[in-house]
């Protein structure tokens, strides 16, 4: 599929969204078919587009631009780009997206507002796909904001629940705090580079000349201009990708329906931040030891560790997954900062699969257990839901980095690049610690939910975990979670080379080489050790969640309180940012009342006076004069109409008088 037709990919779900908006609310079945079908078609087109990138030699990047509108001599162009990065992202988003759509068909079968749900979901997918294909930062930003809007709609889908409405609002506000940075950075870039096109035959803002000039220019403090701009963009990406300190919206966003959580937090929205940075990587990397890459690395590693720590103390099934998402996004950032976009994108893709798998598995569990999400009240589901248990275990192992599953390879690539980072070793240490914690908290969740005794009274036997719409997505995602990693092993880095435009070479030596082998051993040790540790702590014979408190809580109650409450960051924000904003608002109100109000009132009084004067002039001069003219006209007309009294003699009199007049006028003319 040529790049000219790339717009079809987002257009299909957008069309579906439009059609669904027009459907009656009773057409739930039709709506789900239309939405899922359009998404699958998008996936097919994405596959075709991907094939095109394979065809054209080693590295292909084609763009298609057109003029959107002209102002004076400047024309604003927008367009799409098709290169490996786009293709990979398109494939991931559309494939995972369509599987999630399919799962939603079953998950929301009894939802009344199913049509609306699918309309919003399609809209979200369209915005995300549009973001991916954009060849222009402005177009990307537009889609970025549309994604934000769609996420607001989806998270707040059950808006009658106050928590859901609040979560939607929080997600919207917090991501927009980040977007402000993005926006300022974009404007700045536009003003210094003169273009927002990514690739424009050498003149685009990601191409050599512009990147070089931006890297060469410095502003206050010796920072390169490119660094400052990308730091601002990074702030936006942090908001979208849930990096510390803008991560607070992400756990709350679990209030949305589970497929929404899967879509937003696995493949689409949160990945947008990473994708943005990967797209803008040439700018981030404009100067050696770029400050923005350092920042990305630090933010990522801190987030990875911090979120993994918090996940330990959570008891909500989906919240644990949310924190794990934050943590994994941190890994992607870390990979981006140290190893470049290929590493980050690799983890993004594998993560999209196993995280979607985990979320959908959690969806199955939640559905089966009567919407119970507290892991302390779940348990023993291994026997009751063997299929779900199996796929969930695959996802969990992939996430924990169990050897030879996808997460293992992608995380290993990140370790590899973090280890050789020159600036500092601390991110590497944090990443390693985070990986250990990941294994621990995922095992903890598994044990809570699937092992031990059954503690849930509202388990619905009628729920079929093997229904097509439920099982097919899970199975497909599980396959991806197992196999995808082999695309990017150290020995045969197909994925990375594809993204970077080189030919992959099979080199077993790289795998066996000292550093790699050590890392492989290390990550194996971490995941297996972490799982063993957690099993030791939480195994059913030792610990009964129904009667006992969490062992961590028993041993370190203080620390556990911090974990449980997510380091009190929400409270802290409430006390500082929110209260500060409120205070500022109150101050502004006082200012308004004391200064601006009177000023406005004064102006209003002045204007009123002027208006009153003009009204007076109007009434006294203009109107009166006009009235007089009118009266004269009316009187004249009345006089004339009196003359027309309907008597024939009167008329003859006029004729006679006119005759006399004519005669006398002729006489007078004759005389003179």
């Amino acid at each position, binding site marked *: 599929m040529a790049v000219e037709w790339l717009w079809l990919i987002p257009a299909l779900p957008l069309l579906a969204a439009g059609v669904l908006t027009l459907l009656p609310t009773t057409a739930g079945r039709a709506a789900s078919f239309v939405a899922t079908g359009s998404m699958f078609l998008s996936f097919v087109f994405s596959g075709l587009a991907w094939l095109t990138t394979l065809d054209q030699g080693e590295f292909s990047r084609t763009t298609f631009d057109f003029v959107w509108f002209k102002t004076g001599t400047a024309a604003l162009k927008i367009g799409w780009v098709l290169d490996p990065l786009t293709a990979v992202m398109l494939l991931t988003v559309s494939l995972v997206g369509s599987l999630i759509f399919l799962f939603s068909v079953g998950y929301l079968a009894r939802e009344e507002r199913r049509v609306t749900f699918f309309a919003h979901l399609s809209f979200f997918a369209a915005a995300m796909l549009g973001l991916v294909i954009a060849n222009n930062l402005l177009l990307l930003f537009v889609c970025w904001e549309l994604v934000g809007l769609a996420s607001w709609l989806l998270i707040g889908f059950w808006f009658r629940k106050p928590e859901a409405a609040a979560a939607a609002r929080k997600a919207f506000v917090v991501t927009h705090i980040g977007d402000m940075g993005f926006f300022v950075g974009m404007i700045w870039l536009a003003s210094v580079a003169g273009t927002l096109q990514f690739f424009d035959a050498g003149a685009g803002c990601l191409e050599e000349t512009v990147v070089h000039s931006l890297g060469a220019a410095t502003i206050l403090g010796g920072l390169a201009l490119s660094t400052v701009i990308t730091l601002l963009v990074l702030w936006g990406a942090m908001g979208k990708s849930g990096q510390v300190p803008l991560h607070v919206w992400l756990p709350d966003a679990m209030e949305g329906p589970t497929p929404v959580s899967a879509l937003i937090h696995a493949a689409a929205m949160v990945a947008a931040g990473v994708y943005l940075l990967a797209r803008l990587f040439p700018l981030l990397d404009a100067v050696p030891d770029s400050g923005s890459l350092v920042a990305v690395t630090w933010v990522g590693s801190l987030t990875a560790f911090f979120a993994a720590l918090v996940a330990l103390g959570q008891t909500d099934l989906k919240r644990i997954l949310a924190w794990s998402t934050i943590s994994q996004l941190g890994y992607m950032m870390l990979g981006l900062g140290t190893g470049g976009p290929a590493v980050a994108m690799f983890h993004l893709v594998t993560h999209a699969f196993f995280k979607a798998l985990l979320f959908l598995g959690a969806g199955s569990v939640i559905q089966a257990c009567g919407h119970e999400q507290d892991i302390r009240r779940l348990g023993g589901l291994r026997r009751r839901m063997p299929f779900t248990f199996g796929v969930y275990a695959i996802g969990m192992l992939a996430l924990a980095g169990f050897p030879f599953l996808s997460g293992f390879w992608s995380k290993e690539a990140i370790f590899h690049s973090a280890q050789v980072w020159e600036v500092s070793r601390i991110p590497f240490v944090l990443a390693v610690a985070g990986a250990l914690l990941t294994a621990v908290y995922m095992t903890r969740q598994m044990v809570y939910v699937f092992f031990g005794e059954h503690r849930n009274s509202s388990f619905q036997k009628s729920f079929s975990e093997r229904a097509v719409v439920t099982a097919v997505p899970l199975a497909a995602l599980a396959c991806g979670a197992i196999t995808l990693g082999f695309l990017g092993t150290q020995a045969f880095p197909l994925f990375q080379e594809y993204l970077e435009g080189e030919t992959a070479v099979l080199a077993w030596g790289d795998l066996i080489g000292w550093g790699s082998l050590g890392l492989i051993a290390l990550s194996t040790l971490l995941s297996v050790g972490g799982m063993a540790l957690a099993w030791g702590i939480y195994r059913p014979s030792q610990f009964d969640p129904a009667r006992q408190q969490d062992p961590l809580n028993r041993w370190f109650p203080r620390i556990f309180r911090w974990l449980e409450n997510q380091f009190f960051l929400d409270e802290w924000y409430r006390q500082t940012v929110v209260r500060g904003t409120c205070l500022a608002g109150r101050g502004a109100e006082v200012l308004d009342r004391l200064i601006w109000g009177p000023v406005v009132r004064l102006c209003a009084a002045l204007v009123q006076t002027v208006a009153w004067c003009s009204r007076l002039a109007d009434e006294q001069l203009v109107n009166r004069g006009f009235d007089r003219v009118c009266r004269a006209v009316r009187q004249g007309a009345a006089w004339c109409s009196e003359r027309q009294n309907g008597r024939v003699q*009167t008329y003859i*009199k006029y004729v*006679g008088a006119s005759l*006399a007049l004519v*005669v006398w006028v*002729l006489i007078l003319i004759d005389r003179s």
Partner: protein
Amino acid sequence: MSLTFAIIAAIVLTGAIGLSVLRKTVHCVLSLTIVFFGLAMLYIRLDAPFLGFALVLIYVSAVTILILFTVLLTRNREIETDVSPYSRGSIAGLIVGGSVFAGLIWMIYRAPLSRGITELESPASVKSLGERLMTEYVLPLEVIALLLTAAMIGAVIVAMKDPG
């Protein structure tokens, strides 16, 4: 001005003034016949005897009779006796008429009129008139005939009693 003309003019003016001032409509119509007779005499005096006779025939015998019949048909005794024969704006009417007359007189006296008169061998004969009518004025004659027919039919229709 010859005596004959003065006498005839006096007859005409007497009739005219009579018809202006007489109270009863029938009297007015009768004095109108006097005017027409006077005019017919003037026509004869002006070497147009055929027209004079035609005037007597048309006006005195036809039109006047017609008017008399109309007076008869629209007789209304109260108006004839009680009310003044003059309408309300009569002063203004007199002024208008007077000013027209003054203008005409002024023009007549200012006009450069040739006082002389061409002698005719014989008065205008009916034969020559008929020749002119049938040759040069045949189209106006036809039009007039049509007009008279139309007027006659129109008069009948207007004066006809409403069928309703």
